[in-house]
């Protein structure tokens, strides 16, 4: 038995250090445990982070919505909410994570919304100072962070970041560079100029497309003359400029384009050729021909394409040279195409064309083998003019396929529709088929070789019905004048009835003679509710009488679809017409002198005239029961105007003058008004004291003016600044602000004052006591509020109107010339002096 294995008896098992193995095993086990633990840890961390982000997004999204859709002219409650929200959100975004989430939310929303909302989004982003984070990112050493920062600033359209971003245009890190290029072009209109001027690196094709997309989507963008960059040292800039020139059709750079045809870079050459072709620069043709022979195949193709468009007969010689000399098949083909474009059918197909002599012999063979009636046979090669002489009859074409014929082919009628003409007495079409493949091929060479029978078919005349709808209608004898009038009278006419009562009353005959009364009339009745004050039975009866006698219409039909029976029961109220009458009667309206129309005398005269007219006409007196207007003299009118001004703008300081007026005034109504005003100004709630910065220190704080023009939020920020950088000059201001009726300002001022004092103690101790009046204000301030932005109180409802009308505690001289009354008097005196 043959042995199929070898004995390794001499080979002993190696000595394995089991301790080492155990240690190794332990090491790998520990490694695996560490790995799994770390996976578990990081996975959990990521998922926890994701959950936190989702939770934060849920918190931020309603806040953002509130910000985005806040309206300045909204309700007071809404404004308070807005300020509260602003403070809350500022507090929230102190945390870096929250800021990042908020930025992400805004960036997400940016892609989803457009229009005014998007603009508002950009404003909110900058208002919350999130762009400062992006600025910080620009200083990072990590390329992805910098790139992200640039992207963020670009997306949120922070135009101020333009100068910061432009320095990255020539960054050696391509991602940052590309991001910076897009940002530069996006942020400012002149960004593309800066980019093309300064870029030193390659601009990839994809980058060019992106930049073009940015430029293209700019609204109201006026592109610069891109020919200015055709001289750039950077070939990529030249290439991009050429593309932009083509895109914006800037065809004012022909010389530069021609020059660029000689450029070493094939891409530039190609792009220049495209521009030349698109702008139809015929001057470039000689240069195109010159450069042709030294170009690559690709460029040659483009040159020939351009020549086919721009070339003339003079260029045919060159193209023929190309056809003969050029080796590349594609270039040759393109040259022939160009030739045929310039001179159509200049070059005919030559490849695999069989000589004519061969076909002649073939035709003879066919004629001999196929039995066809000679008298009807017309060879397709004959001129069609001969066919016109053939007598033609109308016959139905029938195809009889001779299956027993030696060369026959079964054809459907639709298969031979392409055949040109059919002659008379057609009975059959015989098409020769051959089993021998070579002969069949010869027959299929040309359609003209087929033997066919023709029949010319003309449309049948006389037997068909003709359609004359399109023809104009021609009638017989024209109508006579009487008939025409009758015809017109029979036509139903629809109009709106307007009945003038006086006209019916006074000019009856004339009205009866009216032609319209004889016509059948369709009425549109306008039914107006009867006013209760109108009662004129005489006119009503008169009108009814007229209508029942002379003004009776022959036929009444309504213009809409309601039958007359259905509405016959409706009572038509003619009292409305009586109202119309009062206006119609005033036939001679006196011309109004508008210059004097509003003078008192004119008005009084008019009133007297109206009163007289009313006396003459009792009916009108009954109709118009309007209260008699009151007219005041000049002095009284002036007093009324003065009182109205005082009521709008005045305060308690007007009381002495009002008392004086009260004593002087004799008119009872004016006296009542003055009394009302005195009562209003006297009735002031002392609890509604509000802050008035009337006591200004000798050395005014530099912040004072800022406070006057700032909103609440700005004031709070200023107070923080005062606490940090202020000195003793700010203390009076802060003391005044503590008395402010705005709780945020009040609270911040209090804190700022405390901070300022504690800061100033080592240098100088102020002897000004801080009046803590915050507790007296109608708010509920938590004693534990040590944080400025923690809003844990509620605003007490304070009537806004009454806040303005306050009385300062210090007594005032009532005749010091500062009252509104004094100002009004002084103003009128000035005006008088001016005149």
């Amino acid at each position, binding site marked *: 038995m043959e042995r199929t294995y070898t004995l390794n008896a001499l080979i002993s098992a190696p000595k394995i250090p089991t301790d080492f193995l155990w240690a190794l095993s332990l090491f790998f086990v520990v490694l695996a445990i560490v790995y799994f633990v770390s996976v578990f840890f990081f996975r959990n961390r990521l998922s926890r982070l994701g959950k936190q982000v989702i939770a934060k997004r849920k918190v931020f999204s309603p806040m953002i919505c509130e910000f*985005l859709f806040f309206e300045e002219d909204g309700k007071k409650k809404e404004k308070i909410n807005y300020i509260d929200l602003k403070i809350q959100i500022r507090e929230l975004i102190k945390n870096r994570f929250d800021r990042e989430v908020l930025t992400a939310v805004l960036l997400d929303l940016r892609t989803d*919304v457009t229009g*005014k909302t998007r603009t508002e989004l950009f404003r909110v982003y900058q208002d919350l100072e999130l762009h400062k984070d992006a600025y910080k990112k620009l200083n990072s050493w990590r390329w992805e962070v910098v790139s992200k920062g640039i992207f963020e600033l670009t997306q949120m359209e922070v135009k101020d970041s333009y100068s910061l971003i432009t320095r990255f245009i020539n960054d050696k890190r391509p991602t940052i560079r590309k991001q910076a290029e897009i940002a530069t072009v996006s942020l400012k209109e002149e960004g593309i100029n800066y980019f093309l001027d300064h870029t030193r690196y390659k601009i990839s094709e994809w980058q060019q497309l992106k930049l073009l997309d940015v430029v293209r989507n700019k609204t109201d963008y006026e592109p610069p003359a891109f020919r200015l960059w055709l001289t750039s040292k950077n070939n990529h800039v030249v290439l991009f400029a050429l593309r932009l020139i083509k895109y914006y059709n800037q065809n004012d750079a022909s010389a530069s384009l021609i020059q660029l045809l000689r450029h070493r870079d094939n891409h530039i050459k190609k792009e220049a050729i495209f521009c030349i072709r698109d702008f139809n620069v015929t001057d470039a043709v000689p240069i195109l021909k010159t450069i042709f022979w030294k170009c690559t195949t690709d460029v040659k193709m483009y040159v020939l394409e351009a020549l086919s468009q721009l070339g003339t007969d003079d260029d045919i010689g060159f193209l023929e040279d190309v056809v003969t000399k050029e080796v590349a098949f594609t270039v040759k083909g393109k040259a022939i195409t160009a030739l045929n474009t310039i001179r159509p059918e200049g070059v005919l197909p030559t490849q695999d064309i069989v000589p004519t002599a061969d076909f002649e012999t073939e035709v003879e063979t066919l004629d001999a083998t196929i039995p066809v009636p000679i008298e009807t046979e017309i060879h397709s090669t004959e001129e069609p003019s001969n066919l016109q002489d053939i007598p033609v009859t109308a016959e139905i074409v029938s195809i009889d396929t001779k299956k027993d014929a030696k060369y026959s082919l079964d054809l459907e009628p639709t298969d031979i529709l392409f055949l040109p003409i059919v002659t008379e007495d057609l009975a059959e079409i015989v098409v020769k088929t051959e089993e021998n493949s070579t002969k069949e091929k010869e027959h299929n060479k040309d359609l003209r070789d087929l033997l066919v029978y023709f029949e010319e078919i003309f449309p049948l005349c006389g037997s068909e019905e003709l359609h004359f709808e399109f023809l104009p209608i021609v009638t017989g004898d024209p109508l006579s004048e009487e008939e025409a009038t009758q015809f017109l009278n029979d036509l139903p006419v629809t109009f709106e009835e307007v009945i003038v009562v006086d006209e019916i009353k006074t000019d009856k005959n004339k009205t009866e003679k009216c032609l319209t009364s004889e016509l059948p009339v369709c009425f549109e009745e306008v039914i107006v509710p009867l006013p209760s004050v109108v009662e004129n039975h005489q006119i009503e009866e008169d009108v009814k009488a007229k209508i029942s006698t002379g003004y009776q219409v022959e036929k009444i039909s309504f213009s809409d679809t309601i039958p007359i029976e259905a509405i016959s029961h409706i009572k038509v109220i003619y009292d409305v017409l009586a109202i119309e009458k009062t206006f119609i009667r005033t036939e001679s309206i006196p011309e109004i002198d508008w210059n004097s129309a509003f003078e008192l005398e004119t008005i009084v005269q008019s009133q007297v005239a109206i009163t007289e007219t009313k006396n003459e006409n009792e009916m009108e007196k009954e109709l118009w029961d309007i209260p008699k207007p009151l007219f005041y003299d000049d002095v009284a009118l002036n007093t009324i105007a003065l009182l109205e001004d005082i009521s709008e703008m005045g305060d308690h300081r007007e009381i002495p003058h009002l008392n004086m007026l009260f004593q002087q005034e004799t008119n009872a109504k004016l006296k009542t008004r003055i009394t009302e005003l005195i009562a209003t100004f006297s009735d002031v709630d002392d609890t509604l004291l509000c802050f008035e910065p009337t006591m200004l220190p000798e050395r005014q704080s530099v912040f004072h003016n800022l406070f006057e023009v700032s909103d609440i939020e700005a004031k709070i920020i200023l107070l923080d600044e005062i606490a940090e950088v202020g000195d003793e000059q700010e203390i009076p201001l802060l003391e005044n602000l503590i008395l402010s009726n705005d709780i945020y300002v009040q609270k911040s001022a209090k804190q700022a004052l405390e901070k300022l004092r504690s800061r100033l103690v080592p240098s100088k101790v102020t002897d000004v006591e801080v009046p803590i009046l915050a507790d007296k204000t109608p708010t509920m301030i938590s004693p534990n509020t040590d944080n400025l932005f923690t809003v844990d109180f509620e605003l007490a409802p304070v009537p806004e109107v009454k806040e303005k009308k306050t009385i300062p505690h210090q007594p005032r001289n009532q005749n010091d010339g500062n009252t509104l009354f004094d100002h009004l008097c002084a103003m009128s005196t000035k005006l008088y002096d001016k005149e």
Partner: protein
Amino acid sequence: MNKRTILLADDDALLASLLNFRLEKAGYTVDHVLDGKEVKAYLSHSMPDIIVSDIMMPYFSGIELINHVRKELLSQTPIIIISSAGNEENVLSAFELGANDFISKPVSPSELLVRIARELNKATI
């Protein structure tokens, strides 16, 4: 006057909350659903005055929603479709199935409001 009810179907919670806020501010009652299943469940028990739906939703696309409303529920409730740009084929399909209007992303909330008001007016007439 009763508030008009709008069913807002969009899986993008952020955009949905934004639109929800704007529509509620304009005086409508908005019911927001996140996906097709929720839409179906909602429509099984109530019918809003108008439906504003994203065309791409999980489980049940906007197209299917239109089909469901028009063919199965036989309702003529106005439907406005929100679609992303470059989704013309879907928009055409939506119109063929009976969508009343469409608005493409990015959405202008003011424009959406106008379109909703117009559709509601049409439906009232």
